[in-house]
């Protein structure tokens, strides 16, 4: 009875959802913490503790300048997550709006926009982003802008499908009969019902944004040296891999993996959630 009240069918425990949410929450909490407090000053070079392996005082060890890697990783995570948040906000808002309008109204505008989306998605987004950044030059805001635009199709496609499906459902017809205008129907009636489909898309969007930002910064085409994101740290770490500092790259890379894993488990868990009806 309790299960029916909560509106969800009985099923096996959704470990993906719980584990993903737990990892994401811990990483987010650490990031927020890193904005206010880090165990050491991330930029401080301590000549007495150069190139230390992980130990209780330095959880991820120190780099060749004696900087605490854990403190730097906390800050790098902040930079990476800030960029991802902006990217998902831009592409999610724009993609949902475009998908809503084209899906609800249909017609030739729908056809043209979907062909454009197809053309963009046919080409790997990292490659496109690389080339556009080659023209614009590197930098945090350029990365956000480019990825924000390139991720629009993924949201637009999901939103379009849902709006096109809901357009013919009875509750929308009833709303229309009661005199609701198309905008009101889209925002007040259909949009809340797209949550089961849009939430996983947002989570997967975060997953892809972290991956894309890390890849580009790893290649040195993403953020500038001022905001050291995780990808940039990893490319620093890689150059010390063969010089006896393997923990640098491994710890930073492990942080990236945990971030992506959290989002991908969360997305998978949200998709597996059984719908209420």
């Amino acid at each position, binding site marked *: 009875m309790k299960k029916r009240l909560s509106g969800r069918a009985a099923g096996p425990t959704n470990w993906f959802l719980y584990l993903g949410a737990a990892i994401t929450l811990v990483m987010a909490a650490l990031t927020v913490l890193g904005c206010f407090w880090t165990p050491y000053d991330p930029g401080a070079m301590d000549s007495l503790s150069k190139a230390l392996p992980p130990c209780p005082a330095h959880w991820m060890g120190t780099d060749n300048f004696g900087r605490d890697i854990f403190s730097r990783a906390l800050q790098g995570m902040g930079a990476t997550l800030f960029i991802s948040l902006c990217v998902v906000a831009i592409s999610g808002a724009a993609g949902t709006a475009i998908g809503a309008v084209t899906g609800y109204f249909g017609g030739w505008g729908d056809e043209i926009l979907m062909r454009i989306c197809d053309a963009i998605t046919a080409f*790997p987004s990292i*490659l496109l982003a690389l080339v556009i950044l080659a023209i614009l030059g590197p930098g945090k805001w350029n990365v956000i802008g480019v990825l924000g635009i390139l991720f629009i199709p993924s949201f637009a496609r999901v939103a379009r499908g849902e709006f096109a499906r809901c357009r013919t459902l009875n509750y929308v017809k009833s709303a229309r009969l009661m005199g609701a205008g198309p905008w009101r129907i889209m925002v007040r009636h259909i949009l809340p019902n797209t949550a089961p489909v849009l939430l996983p898309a947002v989570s997967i969007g975060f997953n892809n944004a972290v991956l894309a930002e890390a890849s580009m910064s790893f290649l040195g*085409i993403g953020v500038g040296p001022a905001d050291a994101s995780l990808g940039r740290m990893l490319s620093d770490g890689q150059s010390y891999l063969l010089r006896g500092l393997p923990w640098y790259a491994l710890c930073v890379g492990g942080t990236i993996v945990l971030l992506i894993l959290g989002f991908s488990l969360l997305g*998978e868990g949200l998709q597996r959630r059984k719908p209420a009806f």
Partner: protein
Amino acid sequence: MKYLIKKLCTLIITLFILSLLAFSAFSIIGDPAASMLGTNATPEQVAQLRHELGFDRPLLVQYGDWLSGFLRGDMGTSYSYSLPVSGMVLEKLPTTFVLTLMALALNVAAAIPLGIAAARYAGGLFDRVVTVLNQVIMSIPPFFTGILLTCLFGLVFRLFTPGAFVSYAENPWGFLGYLFFPALSIAAPRTAMTVKLLRSSILEQLGQDYIRTAYSRGSSRTMALWGHALRNALIPVITFTAVSVAEMVAGSIVVEQVFSVPGIGRLLLASISSRDFPVVQAIVVILALWVAAVNLLADVLYQYADPRIRLS
């Protein structure tokens, strides 16, 4: 046939628009004359060079010129090396091509048996292990897989020397051996995704009415899977594999950097950082052609696997 011709036309139009966009973007933003002469050049000198190189002509004329050159195999001249771009690109292309091909082979060879086995024993221990591993491997970016493999097989087991690339001319087997770990790094996340897709695709097919009919005619689960469900289940996997190839081409650009493989990705990155736009432009168009060709191939295979498309 009609379907293929339609696809081919769309493809040519897409490539045309893409190359036009790439061309105009690079021409408008990267003024080569100014950057070639350096900061001491007078405006007259810049104008003179622009005239010599033909950059003062209308953009469409320049594009037409470039396109006809490209089709004849002349991709212009590199700004930084003053060498023909076609030679520079063609020298690097085979390495990346072999790398991607190897990644594709690994991807298909691993994903299809694993996907089938996971679906055949769905819900069992093997299936659960595969599902969990999938989720983890999907979350490891190819460049980090590369770093992990370098650490494990390069530094601990010493199976290869990190950074010591063996060219094909020196030693063909050494060349393939060196490319194995980069190919594995590129293939790993895509393989995990393919296994997941194939598994759910088979399970979806096994729940269809025609499978129930097959059971009622006395077919076993194995027979139903191999004889009926698999062919239908592979259709979405073909489309996905085409996307995978495109992603693996992009992945190779990143992974070449990790393993210092002198392929087209390193050339692209070097050209981007030295703002050598003719090279970047040529690579972009070649990679677009490559991706488009793979998509076309997938469409052909798709038709073969699903006669409904061919007949409609």
